[in-house]
């Protein structure tokens, strides 16, 4: 099995007092679903944002799909990574002035020089998979949060990424909308997509994750399979966190 992401000693700090990332090392195999959990402010989002260069590194080494990345912040390497790694944000970040169809086809047409007809056919196929093909000509503001997030997933998938990063994809949703997004992600995981998911959804983590990485104060506390993590976590930290959540 090949490795999709390998990180060694990642360090990142926003201010002098505390490191957002404190020598984090990890690896993600291709086809694996890694769920990152931890209390807020523990550096989960910062961690996955380093994977596609949204945050620069202070030190440490990253290897994403065979492309090296370190504190030098090489723009060319980052662009090569971004072409192969999709990302879904907490706040959806759809383009409000473009229709759903244009939101999805913008990058395939402008970045991959795809023909418009082909890109649109692919977009409709993806929207169909997400169960929202009837919304194709609407605008983001006319959709519910759950629908918008599914469009965001389709938009990322339109570039045929090899790895998908999810940064708290359900945290901004109404509770009754969470399931439809998680179901879409479940189907994606079943299809063999390599996924790194930052989430607080215990059920999703238990069912879908291959491994759970628990972070606190910028450090990796433990990495375990979900069974082990939820039933008898190794570390005191994780147990306390789980007690609060459940």
């Amino acid at each position, binding site marked *: 099995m090949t490795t999709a992401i390998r990180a060694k000693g990642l360090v990142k700090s926003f201010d002098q007092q505390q490191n957002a990332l404190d020598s984090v090392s990890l690896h993600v195999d291709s086809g694996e679903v890694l769920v990152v959990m931890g209390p807020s402010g523990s550096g989960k989002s910062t961690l996955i944002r380093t994977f*596609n260069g*949204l945050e620069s590194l202070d030190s440490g080494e990253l290897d994403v799909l065979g492309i090296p990345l370190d504190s030098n912040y090489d723009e060319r390497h980052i*662009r090569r990574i*971004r*072409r192969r790694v*999709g*990302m879904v*944000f907490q*706040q959806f*970040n*759809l*383009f*409000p*002035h*473009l*229709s759903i169809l244009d939101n999805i086809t*913008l*990058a395939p047409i*402008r*970045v991959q020089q795809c023909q418009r007809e082909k890109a649109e056919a692919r977009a409709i196929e993806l929207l169909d998979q997400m169960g929202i093909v009837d919304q194709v*000509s*609407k*605008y983001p*503001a*006319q959709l519910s949060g759950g629908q918008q997030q599914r469009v965001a997933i389709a*938009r*990322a998938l339109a*570039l045929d990424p090899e790895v998908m990063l999810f940064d708290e994809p359900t945290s901004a949703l109404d509770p009754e909308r969470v399931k439809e997004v998680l179901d879409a992600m479940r189907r994606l995981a079943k299809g063999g997509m390599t996924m790194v998911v930052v989430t607080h959804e215990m059920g999703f983590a238990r069912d879908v994750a291959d491994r759970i990485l628990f972070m606190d104060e910028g450090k990796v506390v433990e990495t375990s399979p979900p069974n082990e993590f939820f039933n008898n976590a190794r570390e005191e930290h994780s147990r306390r966190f789980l007690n609060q959540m459940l």
Partner: protein
Amino acid sequence: MLLKPAPLKRIKRNLFSSPFDACVSLLLFFLVGWFLSNTIHWIFVVADWSVVLHNIPLFAFGSYPTDQQWRPILWLSMISILFALTFLAPRQGLLRKSLPLLWIFMLPCGVCLLAGGIGLLAIPSRSWGGLTLTLLLTICSASLALPIGILLALGRQNSLPVIQRSCMFYIDVMRSVPLIAVLFFGQLLIPLFLPHDLEVNRVLRAVVAFALFAAAYIAEDVRGGLQAIPNTQREAAVVLGLSQPQILQFVILPQALRIALPALTNQAVGLLQNTSLMAILGLVELLGIGLSLLANPSFIGRYLEVYVWLAVLYWIVCTAMALLSRHLECQLNPTAASTQPS
């Protein structure tokens, strides 16, 4: 559901609900009536409109040669037709898509028609005048000022300190100089610096001066729009692999300009009215025609008629611009655009 009361009841409720209200209403009725009757009396009885009626072509085209006046007429009617089309064209379809191009085409079309040269009799710019010149000045300087303003606004956000500082410097200097000074500089001083035989067209000099001045204000309006775009939009675009110019073109600018549109309309209306300053500097645009007519002995003392007429003309053009901008805002509003069945 609230039932609509009968008209009489409504009048009673809105205007005469208490003795005090009734007094105020009556007083206002009296004042408005008095004002209206005086105005109407002046318009139809006192005023002598011959100064306007005899000089309609002069107001419209200035001293443009009579046998060539079909050219400005053609241009003005093309603009009017395009204006009507903009409101009447269906929301989707080829016509709607080609409207922006047609509007942009009006600029070179107007310049070519007025100046002539290729197959047409060349008319020097000193015979241009009236409403035609006012519109030409406004359209030319606005379409020159907008791109400069956008570049300045983007430059102000640039990470290179040299570019950022020089854009800020330009904007601050231009905003601290009165427009009339910029125009004087363009009309009177620049010819002194240029060699004798090189004469730059006076209209062109005015257009450049207006554009450079307006660009500073437009830059600040656009900057307001740019700042309203959350950084997450940029992040989303970056993650999709779009390059910096593509992010600007497809994600940032369309949203920023839409936010800045009301402020930009303000600038355009202001620009139109500011073109009247050129009357002082020897271009006979609308106000210039008015001034030269008033200097004519046969129309002596007809100030009120001429200025009321000019006010009406400016009001019509400004209202047209405001309507156009409101229509554009409506068109660009994504939720309104999709109410149309697809």
